[in-house]
């Protein structure tokens, strides 16, 4: 059986994560949890949309694994929706996989996010179980899907 060199065994697949979150505690918590996942190699944290764009157009070029973005909506300087707007109109960044992770329960925020093709919209929960489901989902996601 020939194994093509580029083909990565799905079980060994890893991704990098870009966490766009301004609350340090939230960032800390999710970093801890996501960090436990084998599928996650490195978690990069930025605090707003501007820093995120800078990263994506700069240091992210060095990354050769797929990148999954966890995006909060309420951010200083450039909020989540504006960020989504920017990447979806950028030829290189259009296909980024973004999960929105926010406290906002406002229906219009949800609508705007899905309008900009997010992979999922998740409401931040204090519940430990919910967090575990979230990380489990990320793991499954990485294992199951084919990245663009």
């Amino acid at each position: 059986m020939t194994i093509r060199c580029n083909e990565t065994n799905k079980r060994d697949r890893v991704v990098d994560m870009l966490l766009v979150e301004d609350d340090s505690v939230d960032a800390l918590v999710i970093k801890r949890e996501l960090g436990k996942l084998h599928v996650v190699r490195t978690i990069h944290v930025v605090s707003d949309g501007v820093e995120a764009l800078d990263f994506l157009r700069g240091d992210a070029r060095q990354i050769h694994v797929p990148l999954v973005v966890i995006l909060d909506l309420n951010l200083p300087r450039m909020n989540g929706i504006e960020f989504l707007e920017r990447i979806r109109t950028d030829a290189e960044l259009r296909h980024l996989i973004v999960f929105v992770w926010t406290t906002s329960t406002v229906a219009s925020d949800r609508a705007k996010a899905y309008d900009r093709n997010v992979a999922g919209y998740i409401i931040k929960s204090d519940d430990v179980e919910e967090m575990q489901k979230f990380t489990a989902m990320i793991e499954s996601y990485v294992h199951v899907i084919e990245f663009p």
Partner: protein
Amino acid sequence: MNSILHEFHSVAQYFMPHGHCMLWQKELIWLHVGSDLVIAASYYSIPIALVYFVHKRKDLVFNWMFIMFGVFIFACGTTHLMNVWTMWQPYYWLEGIVKMVTGTVSMITAVALWPLIPRALRLPSPRQLQIVNEKLEEEIKEKNRVADELRLAQDRLEHRIQERTEELWQANQSLQREISERNQAEEKFRLAVEASPNGMIMVDQSGTIVLVNSETEKLFGYDRSELVGAPIEMLVPNRFRGDHPHERAAFFATPSKRRMGAARDLHGRRKSGEEIPVEIGLNPVITDNGVFVLSSIIDITERKNAENRQTLYARELERSNAELEQFAYIASHDLRAPLRAINKLSLCIEEDLQDVMQNETREMMTLMRGRVDRMKQFLDDLLEFARVGKVQHQHEMVDVEKLIWYAISISSPWKHVSCNIVGPLPTFETLKVPLEQVFFNLIDNAVKHNDAAQPAVTVSVEELGDRFRFTIGDNGPGIDPVYHSRIFGMFQTLKPRDQKEGSGMGLAFVQKILLQYGGTIDLESTVGAGARFHFTWPKKIVFTTPPPP
């Protein structure tokens, strides 16, 4: 005399008596004498009869003719008597004279008679007279009849005249009454117009003021004498003066009671030139002298001011509501975020230190998280409390029974609470959210504090006219009457919070809601006998917008 007689007598000696002619034959003589005597007698009697007739019939026409006939017949009679006399005594000259007299009279009579004949012929004959008489009688009868009818008609006429007079009199009376009524009415009208607290102006079809009251004088600063007879336009501000006659004409074309300029702000112009905001009602008055307009003018300066104030208040309220919304958002978001962080961090710490953490430390971590939750709950409850009455809720159909079951199910999912519903609970249209909040809180209390082996909640309802009276009863420990008023205070609990978690806001919240929407609450309870909370809720909520300050 004697000489004449003597003369005659002597003359007579020469003549032969007439008997000689008859040769003194007795029979012949007596035939002539006898006849002459009869004739004479008749000819004497007839005139007597005639004269008597004439004398008696004084109205006889041509009575002189009758006299004449009498005379000549008498004369003729005398002639015949002379005939007799001359039979034996030959007084022929006397006889001749008598004959001559007779002849004369006869001739006169005859002559006089002829012209009389036509006249006499014209005199109606007895038959004619009778006919005429009959006709006359007929006519008389007719005339009598007519006279009778006339009298009858006259009577009737008089009767009718009397009636008419009576009618006229009555009419006159009622007319007088009407006049006096009308005068009174006019007087009343004037008084009413004068007494009106609004400015009243009556204007004729040409726009000339015919009547004002003292309020109008005050309103516009003119004296009555300056207004009556003047055009109404003098009270209209300059910029509207041009259109006003046209508007007037339009009104008179279809006069009806209405507000003038329904959508516009109207202004009147005082003598000083100052303008006042007014509201004008127009009433057409149709009289015999034509159509007038009675307008009622109200100075709405005060009302406008009040409206402005109200607008200001409303804006102020909007502003304060907006502030509250901001506050609510901040409270719910920014105040909670650190609390969540604390909880998460404590979990992380516990996780990281789980190998070395002692039980006491673990307990403290739990307590810490409990306090954080408590604070979150306080924040939520405080927010809800602040929002009562400031948020617009919708009217919806509420099935109270369903509401109760739902409240029971969410209040304590881990406890089995039996619910007893007495009688049909109403389904009616009301503000769903506040009513739900009342029920949820009361039922939550009934369940939360219930330490009975078989906790049970009873819900019943009573209809009291325009409101419902709901009762939520439980078989819990009951509440000492000493605390009945305290528990409705904010943040008041009867048990330490570590024993019974609760912000203590529930009943304060319920009370505030009921106050806002026109309900009441009271408590019936003693220790060991459970508790019954009664609250009333209006069937129709009167106002749902926030009350003005």
